[in-house]
């Protein structure tokens, strides 16, 4: 099986090459076939691989060396793939959800002019993302890391003619680049300290080389964390993700919900040893996760653009994953990634379908009453939203989020404050999920729908909906049912979560979580379905509206960065456009021209001046003589 490993990323790559080079000569069906087909075959191979992997003894690692990339001195990196349980989970999600989204896109993008370009970019993305998670060294990982960044850029700016779109694309690329740069500095530091960039070696050597909590390891961890923060849109580099919704909906589903934005989660869990050696970095991760999940959740509550709601919710959910990792609940984080991928992809695709049907209407308050018109979308969306809201027991989201809430208190790095933030996040999540359903699908119809989505679009939704429910059943809280298929696999790679001593009963926390999320749903229902007076009152209150606008603009982070960084930068570049050092040289040239004028003045044709010149000469010589 190992020798076919390369096919998983290679197939999408071939798809990309064919589509980008020959795209304009191919028919639409053929493009769709290649674009979606390559990823589907990849997914198939992955599934076969996954089955094999599950059958093999624990701790199995598949590796394949493609070629030696470079070797100079101690620095070497190969193009070689490495799959363990952690990678496999990611690969499965990437290929499987990727395949579904590609299939969905066949119909979704049907009428777009740049059909081939779309699939080419999507294929390239899948390839890069696969390389990211399959890399056995950090350089290759970085290749994938930047590759997905590029694809994200290309796809956010897919409709490049609209300024907002390419601005969003630029913003996404630049902000993630800031994180990436920190990350690559982390790579340098790792290499300086350990002399290798081969991931297994790093994990082994770091425990021998560093004392727990030493400054260097903390620095490394924080730098890697910054990379993760950038890619995963965590505080303070989260501002790009809401704008990234400018891309087509399948892009948002694949890149900005299911896969790329979770690359940070992958990186941190991949390098878990380093983080575990640094309690401070772990703590920072947890705090960032908790604060992000809360702040983004708050913003999600007031958004009016359906995709922006989902974008903020994605930031918030990834915040949960960071929180989980920060407290040491590795398995929970990965599990949340797993379930989140399904339901968030589902939500985005469904939202895409809604937007498409409503003639590109993004504002949820201009939607409404779609329950009857598009039932399949309605039900699947509701399932997704329920999973997001963590509706107990029936949705995948519940199982994963419940774990995180529990560990936020109880795990080694847990803290009641973190738990409180996470809990309030759960409430908020439930609230805005409900709000979304109610506003979009209930109430009066405000925009008449156009063509309903075709079967090609709905089938992936149904499949995803299924997994949004069933996906959680492979891992139950151990006090309910003793199923832990997922964590068993993950724990081959990642450490088992350590619990604090003397904890309250777990069931208490679970009940609180259930109550909170149900209360959130109820609040949403109360405010939006019943059109409560409170709502009207709020609408009139200036203070509330200020808060609302503050949240609507994502806590005004954009404005903050604008004043602190963007404007000074633009100012400096603008005043120095003509290069201040040039003044020096034009100054020198000017001096010479002035001297020329001065000397020319003596060339005035008057003979007596010339005689005077001779006189000056002899006087000069005599003076010199007298002086010496």
């Amino acid at each position: 099986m190992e020798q076919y490993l390369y096919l998983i990323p290679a197939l999408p790559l071939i798809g990309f090459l064919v589509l980008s080079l020959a795209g304009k000569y191919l028919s639409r069906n053929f493009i769709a076939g290649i674009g979606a087909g390559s990823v589907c075959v990849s997914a198939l191979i992955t599934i076969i691989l996954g089955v094999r992997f599950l059958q093999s003894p624990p701790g199995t690692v598949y590796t394949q060396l493609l070629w030696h990339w470079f070797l100079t001195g101690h620095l070497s990196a190969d193009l070689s793939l490495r799959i363990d349980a952690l990678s496999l989970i990611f690969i499965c999600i990437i290929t499987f959800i990727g395949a579904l989204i590609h299939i969905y896109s066949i119909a979704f993008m049907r009428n777009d002019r740049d059909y081939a370009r779309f699939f080419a970019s999507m294929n390239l993305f899948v390839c890069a993302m696969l390389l990211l998670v399959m890399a056995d060294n950090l350089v290759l990982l970085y290749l994938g890391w930047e590759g997905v960044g590029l694809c994200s850029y290309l796809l956010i700016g897919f409709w490049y003619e609209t300024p907002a779109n390419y601005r969003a694309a630029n913003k996404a690329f630049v902000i993630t680049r800031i994180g990436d740069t920190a990350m690559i500095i982390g790579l340098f530091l790792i290499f300086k300290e350990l002399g290798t960039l081969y991931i297994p070696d790093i994990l082994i050597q770091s425990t021998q080389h560093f004392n727990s909590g030493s400054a260097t390891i903390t620095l490394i961890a924080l730098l890697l964390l910054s990379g993760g923060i950038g890619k995963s849109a965590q505080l303070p580099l989260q501002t790009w993700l809401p704008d990234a919704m400018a891309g087509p909906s399948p892009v948002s589903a694949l890149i900005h919900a299911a896969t790329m934005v979770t690359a940070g989660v992958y990186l941190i869990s991949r390098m878990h040893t380093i983080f575990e050696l640094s309690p401070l970095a772990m703590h920072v991760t947890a705090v960032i996760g908790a604060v992000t999940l809360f702040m983004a959740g708050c913003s999600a509550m007031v958004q009016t653009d359906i995709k922006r709601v989902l974008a903020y919710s994605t930031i918030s959910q990834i915040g949960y994953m960071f929180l989980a990792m920060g407290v040491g609940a590795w398995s929970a984080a990965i599990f949340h990634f797993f379930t989140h991928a399904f339901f968030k992809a589902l939500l985005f695709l469904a939202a895409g379908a809604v937007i498409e049907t409503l003639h590109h209407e993004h504002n949820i308050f201009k939607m409404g009453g779609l329950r009857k018109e598009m039932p399949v979308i309605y039900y699947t969306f509701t399932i997704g939203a329920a999973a997001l809201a963590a509706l107990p027991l029936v949705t995948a989201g519940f199982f994963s989020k419940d774990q995180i809430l529990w560990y936020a208190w109880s795990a080694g790095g847990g803290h009641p404050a973190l738990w409180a933030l996470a809990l309030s996040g759960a409430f908020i999540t439930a609230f805005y999920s409900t709000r979304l359903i109610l506003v979009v699908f209930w109430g009066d119809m405000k925009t008449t729908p156009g063509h309903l989505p075709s079967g090609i679009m709905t089938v992936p939704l149904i499949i995803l909906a299924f997994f949004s429910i069933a996906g959680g059943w492979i891992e139950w809280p151990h006090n309910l049912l003793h199923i832990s298929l997922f964590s068993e696999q993950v724990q081959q790679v990642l450490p088992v979560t350590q619990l604090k001593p003397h904890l309250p009963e777990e069931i208490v926390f679970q009940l609180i979580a259930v109550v909170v999320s149900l209360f959130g749903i109820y609040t949403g229902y109360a405010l939006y379905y019943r059109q409560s007076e409170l709502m009207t009152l709020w609408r009139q209150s200036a203070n509330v509206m200020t808060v609302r606008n503050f949240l609507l603009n994502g806590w005004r982070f954009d404005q903050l960065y604008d004043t602190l960084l963007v404007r000074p930068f633009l100012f400096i570049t603008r005043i120095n456009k003509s290069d201040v050092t040039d003044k020096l040289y034009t100054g020198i040239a000017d001096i010479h021209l002035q001297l020329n004028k001065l000397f020319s003045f003596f060339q005035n044709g008057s003979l007596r001046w010339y005689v005077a010149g001779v006189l000056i000469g002899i006087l000069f010589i005599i003076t010199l003589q007298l002086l010496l």
Partner: protein
Amino acid sequence: MSSIHAHTVLIVAAILFVLGLAGALIRRNVIFMLLSIEIMLNAAGLAFVVAGARWQQPDGQIMYLFILAMAAAEVSVALALVLQIHHQHKTLDIEQLKELKD
């Protein structure tokens, strides 16, 4: 002749020389400039003669003869040019000859 005496004459020559130079600087008329230059040349000649006398050699006087010959040749060319200038410019004022300049 004692050397002090020689130096005294040398001072006379130097004064003559400076006078000539001053004349060349101050006078605008070409003829007067040429006259001043003659004075300078003769000052140099005087210096040569004094020097020759100091060393009891005829060389200084020989040199003076050469100077005379040269001055004559020079003045002959100069006067031809002066004629041309007068012919072309109707003036001998050197300040009027400023066609060639930057």
